[in-house]
């Protein structure tokens, strides 16, 4: 019989049992995502404050989401300017994102309110936009008017942690601040 203190027992539990390993992996995943998000936020703030125009800001926002959350398909950002929908995509499948995808994305989430996260899990094996099996989208609004959408897309069904959802909302909130900066100038 080993006389272990609590920390040793905890270590043994983590190492020796599948349940311990699973719980530890859940904890580790939460930490990894949180750290990635915390690294990405100051970079995003620096970039958007120095950006020259709205398009650059949108690209930086998409970059931050791609870096922090690492979707295996793409991060897609669309923005409405002078009645035109324009978009930016980053990530492994970005080259395949067409104008039609930006339009479909816009139409699909047009009603998404501020402060909400739309989470989609697609049962169909062909997937939804970009063939994604899961996605998370947030809206950037000026007053009641939708000015942009930001979505992250994965090839597999997955759940989204509270940190991931909050990161999306934080980026959308930063987007609104930056939109107002461009409006003011």
């Amino acid at each position, binding site marked *: 019989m080993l006389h272990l203190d*609590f920390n040793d*027992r*905890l270590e043994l*539990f*983590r190492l020796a*049992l*599948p*349940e*311990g390993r*699973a*719980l*530890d992996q*859940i*904890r580790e995943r*939460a*930490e990894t*995502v*949180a*750290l990635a*998000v*915390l*690294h990405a*936020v*100051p970079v995003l*703030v*620096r970039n958007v*404050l120095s950006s020259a125009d709205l398009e650059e800001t949108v690209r930086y926002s998409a970059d931050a989401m791609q870096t922090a959350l690492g979707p295996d398909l793409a991060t897609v950002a669309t923005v409405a300017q002078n009645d035109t929908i324009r978009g930016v995509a980053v990530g492994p499948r970005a080259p395949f994102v067409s104008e039609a995808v930006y339009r479909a994305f816009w139409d699909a989430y047009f009603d998404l309110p501020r402060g909400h996260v739309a989470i989609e899990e697609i049962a169909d094996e062909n997937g939804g936009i970009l063939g994604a099996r899961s996605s998370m989208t947030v809206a950037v609004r000026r007053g009641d008017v939708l000015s942009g959408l930001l979505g992250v897309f994965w090839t597999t069904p997955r759940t989204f*942690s*509270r*940190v991931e959802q*909050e*990161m999306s*909302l*934080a980026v959308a*909130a*930063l987007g609104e*601040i930056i939109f107002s*900066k461009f409006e003011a100038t």
Partner: protein
Amino acid sequence: MVKSERCRLVNQQSEASVEQRRKDLKAFLVVRRRRLEAEVVGYRGRPRVREGLSQGEIAELAGVSLNWYELFESGRGDRRVSVDFVQRIAIALRLDFDERLELFRLALPEAQALDEMRERTEKTALSVLRAIPGMLRRVIVVSSLDDMVTIAADSMHAALKPDYATIATIQTDGTLMGFAIGPRVQTICNSVHRMFWDLHADLADGDVGIVESEPRPEVLPRSEHNVQIVAVADEHRSVLKSLKWTTDQYSEEENEWAACSSLAVAIREGDALRALLGGFWSTPRKFSRIELETARAIAAIVRVVL
């Protein structure tokens, strides 16, 4: 709040969470026991007055005593069970992997510890993510360093929730100015800001200076302390300053400074230290990577806006 009141509060909180866990464990076990079909697990021909299996049958299947199983199902927090015991119950109840995880979480202190670590990590990350847009909204409309650092201190306090105070110390034209927020703000006088400044004067941009000290009495007027400030840069830790100092060195007023552990970040313009931000706790503690990264992120945002 005096120390005894604080301890009582902490104990009440933990008693409440133990009670909740006890109820959850009981509900979890009763539901799983009642959903089992007697025939499937090999009990045939016995008259049934209620659905599922009895406590005695589960104890028999698990190879544990009925008395132990009854105590376990009642969620008696004073009875410590082994990992082996919980595994036997999980097999007897035919739990799938996710259910086993849930049972482990509810029944074993080891699993609870891991779960609490995850929760703490998430909570801190959520707090800072919620604080940052508000911080940026305020920071970009002010122009002075004082205002920016004060806003940053607010955000740091909202994100890290130190139980002693959050302090911002700013140097303008060679004069130190201070701002503090938190439950023990009344103990923070000018000498504390000077002490904070002197101890962290060499802290580099991007590093976090931490003190993870031993417990001290609640009130320490004019006594001597050993302080070791460790600078953390990414994964690397090095001693920034190790010294003996007395509150006498700083006190022109009665100093009741009694923080035990702290975390600080510097804001520099070129080589010159312009401001320090610090979170202070009344108890010794180890800082998680998330907490360090949160402080670093807040300082980085101020630097960017500057």
